[in-house]
């Protein structure tokens, strides 16, 4: 049982996207592909699976148990799915049929792929779910399960297929730290049970959890490879070094500053959402120049609290007071998904020009900020979907800074960014705090990040 990839090269219409990657995979030892978005690591997985987008072509050899997969006709490659090669989906809550109960989605693999009887299939599915700690969840629908539970249902379904090779592409995307740890443990257990495991991620913490071998990719090329955790302890390549250093736990603590005048104050805040109490009787205030973090698992009401303070939502009880000195537009926000925070229908430059006209701002304001935020002026001619997430988030910051905010609410503002980009954006935020005295409200599920940056960490939902 082996997978050997030799000089795999992927070409697209605009040139070579992946340059001759080679690796071998054996049961029991995971292989982690590390790299930033666009480094070609997902293409590699798609080439193995046989799901490359139209227009892309793979060259080289992909030997599964000695048989080269690349020359096979699509029909034969399809026949391998589930039985020989399985792929754990990204965002499992979208990968499960919303109208089918969890157990049925697992059992159908036993029944329809492996031709077991209905009762036998149900029994097997129940056992698999129980094994993954999902007793009693089988009768529920995906939307009734948490993200982590959905991921385990998907894993159970993949397991049921029984493929020897398991590919997981960004399995922790969108998961908070606790869930990420669970997912990592589950995957490692798969490898330990004797499967070949290929994991693609930009999450250094996940790589550390999984162990095994690792390859670091940058711009379509493998820049470094080696065993974990050694590779991360003593990185050779500059990129790997930066990647490791970008982990929040390795950051330096931000300087603590004494809070100035109060910007917003919330007293006795109560809020219920979806029939559940998020918090009852919460007091909170943020002062000038202060960095406050709100941490906690997803769904605990972190974002809601920030929105209450910014006046974007109303508390059920209690009140929010804003300092009289704060300008009407003195509270600004950075969003988790920067693309969703810009209208897709105008270029970034047009958006900024409109903002400038609306508030009568000097023309050179934005121009002056661009180099400070390390943004190329050429980007102004592009639409939000045409720049990278990191760049767009910096434009979000630029947009907010034009209005001289007293408080910036960064709502998971870096959670969707690559580690290096996250570090870069956070550094910029830090500069704002230090140079302008802007207060910062950080909402994050990353405890390490909260602890490094904030003078005060409010933990919700614990």
């Amino acid at each position, binding site marked *: 049982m082996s997978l050997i990839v030799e000089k795999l090269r992927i070409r697209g219409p605009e040139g070579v996207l992946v340059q001759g990657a080679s690796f071998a995979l054996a049961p029991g030892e995971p292989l982690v592909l590390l790299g930033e978005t666009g480094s070609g690591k997902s293409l590699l997985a798609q080439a193995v699976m046989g799901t490359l987008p139209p227009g892309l072509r793979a060259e080289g050899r992909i030997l599964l148990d000695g048989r080269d997969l690349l020359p096979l006709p699509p029909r034969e490659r399809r026949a391998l799915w589930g039985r020989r090669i399985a792929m754990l989906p990204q965002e499992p809550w979208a990968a499960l049929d919303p109208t089918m109960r969890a157990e049925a989605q697992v059992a159908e693999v036993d029944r329809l792929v492996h031709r077991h009887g209905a009762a036998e299939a149900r029994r097997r599915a129940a056992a698999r779910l129980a094994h993954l700690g999902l007793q009693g969840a089988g009768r529920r629908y995906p939307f009734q399960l948490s993200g982590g539970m959905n991921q385990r249902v998907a894993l159970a379904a993949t397991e049921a297929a029984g493929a020897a090779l398991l590919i997981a592409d960004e399995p922790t995307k969108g998961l908070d730290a606790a869930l990420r740890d669970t997912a990592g443990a589950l995957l490692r257990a798969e490898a330990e049970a004797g499967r070949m495991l290929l994991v693609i991620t930009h999450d250094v913490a996940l790589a550390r959890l999984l162990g095994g071998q690792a390859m670091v990719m940058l711009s379509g090329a493998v820049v470094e490879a080696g065993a974990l955790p050694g590779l991360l302890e003593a990185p050779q390549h500059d990129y790997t070094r930066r990647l490791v250093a970008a982990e929040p736990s390795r950051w330096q603590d931000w300087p603590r500053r004494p809070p100035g005048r109060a910007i917003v104050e919330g007293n006795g805040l109560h809020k219920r959402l979806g029939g559940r109490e998020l918090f009852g009787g919460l007091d909170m205030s943020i002062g000038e120049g202060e960095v406050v973090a709100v941490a906690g698992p997803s769904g605990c009401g972190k974002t809601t609290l920030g929105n209450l303070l910014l006046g*974007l939502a109303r508390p059920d009880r209690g009140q929010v007071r804003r300092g009289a000195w704060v300008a*009407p*537009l003195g*509270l600004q926000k950075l*969003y988790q998904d920067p693309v969703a925070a810009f*209208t*897709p229908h105008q270029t970034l430059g047009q958006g900024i020009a409109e903002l400038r006209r*609306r508030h009568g701002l000097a023309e050179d304001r934005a121009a002056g900020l661009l180099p400070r935020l390390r943004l190329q002026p050429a980007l102004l001619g592009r639409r939000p979907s045409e720049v990278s997430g990191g760049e767009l988030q910096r434009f979000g910051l630029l947009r907010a800074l034009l209005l001289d905010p007293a408080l910036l609410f960064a709502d998971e503002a870096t959670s969707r960014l690559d580690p290096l980009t996250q570090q870069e954006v956070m550094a910029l935020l830090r500069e704002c705090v230090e140079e302008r005295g802007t207060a910062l409200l950080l909402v994050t599920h990353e405890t390490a990040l909260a602890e490094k940056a904030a003078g005060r960490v409010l933990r919700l939902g614990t």
Partner: protein
Amino acid sequence: MTLSSRRLLGGAMLAAVAGFALLGPLHGADPLRQNLSATLLPPGAGHPLGTDHLGRDMLARLAAGARLSFGYALLAALAAAVPGTLLGLLAALRGGWPERLLLGLADAVQALPALLLVVLVTAFAPGEFLPLYIGVALALWVEFFRISRNTAAGVLARPQVEAARLLGLGTGHILRRHLWPEVAALTATLFAFAAGTAVTTVAALAFVGVGARPPVPEWGSMMTELLPYHAEAPLALLLPALLIFLTVLGLHLLAGRERA
């Protein structure tokens, strides 16, 4: 087929209909001139598309009808689209009781048979075109209202709108830059269908006896008038249908986005 080639094809179809409307008169025949001794002629010299039951030149009538049906159908669709979309945007932006009121009204109007609306409106001025199409618009606005309200409500819930509000960009900006581009795309597709619906509804009305006043060469009425002659002159009956077909398909392809 790529999107742009679809649009091209759609544009070509509409251009063909429009060209027909504009070039038809060059043929020189009077769409109202009758010749009772040359009725229901097949296409031939003198009458490239034959004649109808009163011996009128089909080419001239179809071309004149193109100007009428095409023009009025677009007008009716416009008369439904503009207020419908505006009300939808207003409802989504304003929320609260005006939204509930408008939604209730839309529900109730939708439950009212559209044909009844049209019949009642047209009864005020039988045979006139304007009330006919006003009636059609009165029935059609609901769909525009719904689509625009639902789309706008969806967009308003997005972070981009919250961000715009925080940045102090007013309602005008939200309307122009956030809501309109999204709503417009859907409205355009709906518009294509509404225009087609307008023509066929008018034809249906003519069929039940509430149509345009003779001798107006309107496509729908032409089909109704020619229906009794389906066995003698099938082509004459199907030609207006063919033009409606080109118009609907053309608008559909041009409007682009896949939606029924």
